[in-house]
């Protein structure tokens, strides 16, 4: 999902400490998908409460935000609005893939192949209205601001960083760079040991920082050209040109200057490429948003423990971390005087 330019985008390691007291605009859908696919039972089933409501995302949102806030980071969540009409193809394909994964999941379960069942189940994740609503409710109880984007969450998040209201976008996709986000932090919410797909090995995941200006300087291109490379490789709005990956895309764009040049030279075609460019260059964003951090918890226990069957003691210790983080936010440093 998202644009496939990973191979040419350089990143650097970043610690939680480097993000102390900084606002990170997190692409909410992206992160909730991560939680829905990774926080599951051994057989691949989602965590549920006694009423059958999914709770995997709530678990992820609570514990991961507790870690961020404990470390002095200020997370804000940006939710997707209506998808661009250009995205319909991708959405349709995702839906088909999920339906296939669901069938494969059932079959794997029947065979008793738990490993395969889990892998397939991870691909079936969907964000229902209930999941979105309960996410927002929990975030609000945790004092975390939620921003409703007019269209793409990543575009809105990038806009907020561009304006200087947030320090970086937090998410796993590179689209925010095409949307012009000066900084993107990856692996913010999945830091720690993580199982490698399709094997029993674990890999240490650490947060990574990508700085747009450094990336463009290093590749010696401008943002318009980065967008054109993205379109050549494929985005959520188009399939990409067969046989062109990020490295070749970069080479062609540098040689032929822009997408038009490459398409003409290679005798290829991309439907509506001008419209796709415009989605990245002139995305639908809004300026009336509030990044107000409440250093006060709502009744999280009643929501999670009483309504959603979470363990009181685990929730309690997460809330303790959050309170510590709130205190840290209020404490100034001598170096700021």
């Amino acid at each position, binding site marked *: 999902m998202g644009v496939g330019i990973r191979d040419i985008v350089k990143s650097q390691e970043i610690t939680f400490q480097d993000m102390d007291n900084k606002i990170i605009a997190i692409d909410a859908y992206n992160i909730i998908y991560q939680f829905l696919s990774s926080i599951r039972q051994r057989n691949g089933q989602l965590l549920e409460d006694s009423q059958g409501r999914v709770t995997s995302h709530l678990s992820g949102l609570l514990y991961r935000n507790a870690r961020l806030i404990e470390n002095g980071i200020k997370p804000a969540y940006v939710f997707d609005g209506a998808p661009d009409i250009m995205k319909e193809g991708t959405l349709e394909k995702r839906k088909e893939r999920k339906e296939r994964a669901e069938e494969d999941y059932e079959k794997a379960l029947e065979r008793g192949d738990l490993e395969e069942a889990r892998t397939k189940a991870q691909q079936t994740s969907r964000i229902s209205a209930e999941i979105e609503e309960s996410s927002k409710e929990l975030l609000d109880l945790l004092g975390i601001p939620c921003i409703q984007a007019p269209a793409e969450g990543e575009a809105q998040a990038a806009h907020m960083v561009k304006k200087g209201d947030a320090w970086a976008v937090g998410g796993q996709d590179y689209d925010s760079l095409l949307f012009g986000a000066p900084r993107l932090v990856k692996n913010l919410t999945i830091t720690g040991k993580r199982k490698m797909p399709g094997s029993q090995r674990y890999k240490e995941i650490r947060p990574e920082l990508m700085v747009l200006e450094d990336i463009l300087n290093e590749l010696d291109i401008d943002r318009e050209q980065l967008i054109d490379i993205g379109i050549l490789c494929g985005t959520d709005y188009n399939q990409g040109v067969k046989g062109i990956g990020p490295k070749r895309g970069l080479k062609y764009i540098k040689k032929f200057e822009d997408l038009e040049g490459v398409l003409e030279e290679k005798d290829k075609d991309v439907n509506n490429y001008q419209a796709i460019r415009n989605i990245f260059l002139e995305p639908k964003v809004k300026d009336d948003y509030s990044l107000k951090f409440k250093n006060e918890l709502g009744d999280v226990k009643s929501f999670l423990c009483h309504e959603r069957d979470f363990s009181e003691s685990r929730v309690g210790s997460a809330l303790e971390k959050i309170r510590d983080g709130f205190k840290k936010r209020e404490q100034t440093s*001598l170096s700021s005087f």
Partner: protein
Amino acid sequence: MLNAEINSNVLKDLVDIVGTIVDEVKINLNEEGLNLKAVDPAHVAMVDLSLSKDAFEAYEADETELGLNLKKMEQFLRLAEAGEMVRMTLDEDENRLVLEVTNITQKMALLDTAGMTDPNVPSLDLPLSLKVKGKYVLNGVKASENISDHISITANPDGFEILSEEDEDMVRLSLNEEELEELNANEEVRSLFALDYFSNMIKCVSKDTVLEIELGADYPIKIQFSFAEENGSVRYLLAPRIEST
């Protein structure tokens, strides 16, 4: 070179005063005595301490830097009786501090001071100053510890106040102008401070010690007092907490 003898109580005060800020410190020695500056890892509190050679029973030193582990020093001082003399010499060949009390000699490895720089002291121009007896502040802080994890300190031309509030509970220490040793105020200022830092900073203050306080509005507080019978002086700086709205 260092060849000194000092009352263990004085040394203990020094270790307590600095130890609430850092575990390791660089002490600058010279012929006239010693001085040090240290800031805690979070850059919330800073200590600036000096101790004249007059605080020692005997004192002889060249200009040297000592990198000291205060935790180890504290452990050694538990071996000394109250008021017992501690002999301090430097084993320069092995880079160790040699400490002696009756029947016990301890050689303590010194820390490499190469990476230990003196912190920059922020230049603060604080609008209000006052002098207050230690006993009042000690009481106010003690009362606050039962209420909350922070205190607000307010001063104006009429007096001085330490207030702690949490939920429905509140405790307040108020002192009018007469109860203060000195008050130079043209306006009212108020700042909020983390109580754990504050309590630790006045831990070694005695009831009769006069604290010199400088204060601003949402600004760091400066607290100065002397120890070792006026032969030592301490200045603390503590960054404020800013209230969430």
